[in-house]
């Protein structure tokens, strides 16, 4: 906890703490009492967490915004002293995008989706911003899915999975193979069998 202040210096609000705690050299015994005092005087909203990407780059983010990720929330609740959250599975570029998403959705909570849904067009149901957010190349999209899964951010996972689903819907098998670069590993007999099965299923 103390070491993380080295870069930025002590938070400004420490100035209003009693003089006994002005010094940064805190002993272990007084740490627990400091924690209690900290709870009273520290504004939880202003805590900045630092997310550490795969390339060991750290990015600051408000704690409340970061709570959108269940993983970060669990890690924070497990150790409130630790302000640096390591995310070794997430690349820097992807982490930046995820943070953009969390920041935007923190300030713009999703509208209640009216049931029944008014439009058949996804772009009209999700916000314009969301639709643009997932207009990225396939690799980034997959990275976002993996990151959303790892960091456990349901809204982002839903958005990205829905986007991939829209790339699959209504397409023929060959089109799907082309789109996702997938090798057709059926034997001719298997392929024929699958085709017959699907024909039967469609007619049911």
């Amino acid at each position: 906890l103390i070491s993380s202040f080295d870069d930025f210096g002590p938070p400004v609000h420490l100035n209003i703490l009693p003089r006994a705690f002005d010094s940064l050299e805190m002993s272990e015994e007084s740490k627990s009492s400091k924690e209690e005092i900290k709870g009273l005087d520290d504004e939880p909203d202003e805590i900045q967490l630092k997310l550490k990407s795969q390339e060991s780059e750290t990015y600051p983010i408000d704690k409340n915004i970061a709570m959108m990720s269940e993983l970060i929330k669990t890690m924070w609740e497990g150790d409130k002293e630790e302000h640096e959250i390591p995310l070794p599975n997430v690349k820097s570029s992807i982490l930046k995008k995820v943070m953009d998403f969390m920041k935007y959705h923190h300030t713009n909570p999703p509208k209640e989706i009216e049931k029944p849904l008014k439009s058949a067009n996804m772009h009209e149901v999700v916000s314009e911003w969301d639709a643009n957010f997932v207009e990225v190349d396939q690799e980034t999209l997959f990275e976002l899915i993996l990151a959303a899964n790892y960091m456990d951010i349901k809204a982002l996972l839903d958005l990205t999975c829905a986007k991939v689903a829209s790339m699959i819907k209504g397409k023929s098998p060959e089109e799907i193979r082309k789109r996702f670069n997938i090798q057709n590993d059926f034997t001719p007999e298997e392929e024929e069998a699958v085709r017959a099965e699907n024909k039967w299923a469609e007619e049911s």
Partner: protein
Amino acid sequence: DENQDSELESFRQQWKQELKTGPRLQQLGAAGNTKKTNKNWRTGGNRNLNRHVHATPTASNVGNNNAPVEDNSRFGEASSRSASTNNKSIAVANTKVVIQQLQNVVLTDVSSPIVEASRNDCVNDNYNYNNCSGNTGRSRMSDEEKEQLARQHYIRGVELERAGQLYEAIQQYRRAMQLVPDIENTALLSCLNNDDNSDNEDDTSQLSENNSSSGTGLFGQLTSLLSPSAPVCQPRYQQQALHVSSLPQELLENILCWVVGGELDVRSLHAFSAVCRGFYVLTRAETLWKKACQRVWGRNCSLEDRVPPSSNKPAQKDTEKSLYGDSWRLMYLTRPQPRYNGCYISKTSYFRSGECNFHDHTYQPWHLVSYYRCIRFFPGGVSLMLTTSELPQTVVGHLSNRDPKQPQVLVGQYSLEGSLINLKFRREHNNKRGSTHRSKGGKRWGQGTTDVAETLLSMTLELLSTKKGIRNWFLCWRSYSITSVLQNGLVESNDLDVSQLDSFPQLAFSRVKSYNRESMQQLQ
């Protein structure tokens, strides 16, 4: 290792030679492993492969069909396929050595360009292999399993090669070698029996029984072929970027729930299953079909549900076994339910005598009135109905949302009872509407419609199949009653005679592609 180093040196010498002579290889060598290079690799390889296949058989070509030992040279040739065919002789001469190098360097660190490229292939595969975060719970394959799988790949490769699909054969060999580097020698010891071929034929015939148990049938065969920890699909062409196979299985199932969606677009699911083996196995996951069944028949539906007897079919004998075995998929596909990706449309025509009106110059002794009735069903009990004189093609767009904007479209509920559908629609009248010229069942409402506050339409239709066996295609009238609630509170009920097929023709299904363009919600 000193031996390895010297081999690698000679290997490097060979490739330097080929780099000077082969223009395509030069590109490969110079550009390293950029995406552009991969493209050249791919197109260069394919072009060469085509040429190779159609070329007159060379000594190595003919030799390959006999003994597996010769397969080495094929492997070496194809791996050096970027070389132009003029240099085939050079490649052929060095194949044996090349194979050794490749086998050794697949797992070691070498900086030769072409080996890098093929090693990246293997590394990518391994990356996908090991990086599936969803697979952390699964233990590593034992050596026996590895060898078994490697042998399967190897045998598959031999089959493909015999069939002339060289590119696919290479992939199988490579996969086999990734698992067990000297699979060739061990595979030689075990006899290559013809069981695989006969198994294929057996399974296609079993398919006609639509056997859902996992032991037999196409599903069983494919699940046994696929190893649980292997990636679900393979990239067709080598790619640097993250491939869809790196997504763990649970995420792919999540995506499938979006593909099917709340509107139950199983047609997309069928297309998805025809992409590759792994995807096929994914689509047969019972959890997906169970959710779909629950969407249609409610949370409390079970596999033991019996279809209540309808008017046409006699009561079914209550057997011990459930109709659908243990397969939700079978229940979804065989139990009667309306189709959701289109409308049921019927056309009714009748003659109306013309009104003699002296001022009206359009007098005709009779008029032919025809109107279309379009009914659309949504999973979850919502239905829409539109009766219109316009052509259905122009008006199906009005039925695309659960909450239509047009006032002429009636919104109602339906419930399923076996193959019977009970529909209820409600139309509210306000005085401004006055009398509508729309007719129902050949009768014309009189001038008294201004007194009606609301109309309740209650109808029962039955799902029928076509003669060729296409299920849930026709809707046949069973009953229709119209209840009018007058503004003074009186209720009038009218039961229409639906047995006249002229007035109440069958409704036939017609698919509308635009209904399933996007998924609005995930299948829960």
